[in-house]
């Protein structure tokens, strides 16, 4: 990031928020992992990330640079914005994986979020039928939909567990086809998640 070295003292380039020679705030890295000084892993220790976030928030806070040079004031604003984005993205496993895949040059997931997983096709069809019935006042469709909702929520939980296992697998071997599997799992999770919302909405609408 700071390829030209420190903007203030000219010290040799290094990856850090502050120049290790003169302790001046440097232009922040835009990559979330580099910015936070974290190893590029999919499995992230979220409580530790939170501590780190609070600590860095104080270090780069614009209040500390009110009397600084224009450069420092700007870098502090930039760093705060990146820090917030980085924290929000990396603390959530799904957002983190989506970010990670994008950075690895894989087409962002979400392209196929409406693709019906084949094994769910029949059930999705039945749920749509039941939702239509319920919208038309057919209260007898409600218990079936509630049962389907419970199943979809459980399935979402299973997919979360799958994702966790795939994260660990990727961190161990860094194999690209694991990333492809993660993308597939994200698509399925997104589909199931939309389905959960759709059924919830159908059940609460009156």
């Amino acid at each position: 990031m700071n390829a030209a070295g420190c903007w203030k003292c000219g010290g040799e380039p290094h990856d850090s928020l502050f120049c290790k020679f003169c302790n001046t705030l440097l232009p922040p890295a835009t990559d979330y992992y580099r910015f936070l000084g974290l190893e590029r892993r999919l499995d992230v220790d979220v409580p530790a990330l939170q501590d780190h976030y609070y600590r860095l928030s104080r270090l780069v806070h614009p209040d500390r640079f009110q009397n600084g040079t224009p450069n420092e004031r700007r870098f502090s604003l930039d760093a705060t914005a990146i820090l917030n984005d980085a924290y929000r993205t990396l603390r959530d496993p799904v957002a983190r994986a989506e970010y990670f895949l994008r950075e690895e040059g894989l087409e962002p997931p979400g392209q196929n979020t409406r693709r019906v997983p084949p094994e769910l096709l029949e059930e999705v069809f039945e749920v749509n039928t039941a939702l239509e019935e319920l919208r038309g006042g057919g209260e007898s469709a409600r218990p079936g939909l509630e049962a389907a909702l419970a199943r979809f929520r459980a399935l979402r939980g299973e997919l979360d567990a799958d994702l966790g296992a795939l994260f660990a697998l990727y961190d161990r071997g860094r194999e690209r086809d694991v990333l492809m599997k993660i993308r597939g799992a994200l698509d399925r999770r997104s589909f199931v998640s939309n389905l959960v919302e759709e059924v919830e909405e159908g059940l609460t609408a009156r």
Partner: protein
Amino acid sequence: MSYSEKVLDHYNNPRNVGSFDKNDPTVGTGMVGAPECGDVMRLQLKVNPETGVIEDAKFKTFGCGSAIASSSLATEWVKGRTLDQALAIKNVEIVNELSLPPVKIHCSVLAEDAIKAAINDYKKKRDGEGR
């Protein structure tokens, strides 16, 4: 984007909406989902086992007007055809008939896939009977 008159006609008066008993050995059921828009379509055929002619067809589609029109049209077209003739139906024919715009071509693909899936299902049942 506006729908063509033919799409609107099928959308407002869909032909052959409904279902057959999917356990009936003379019924083939095709269930397909569209990747692009999340539509789901079920198309069912009732086949005369002696002649191999499709005698009746029903569909139910959850999706946009073009998907509904494509499947409605497909049920009309397969009736009276043999399985092989029905397999020959191409999605472009549906596109042309309904004047579907490029963004809705996938709806016609879905209908073609549904026909094929239903025929496969029927054949599987027929051949599974062990005669």
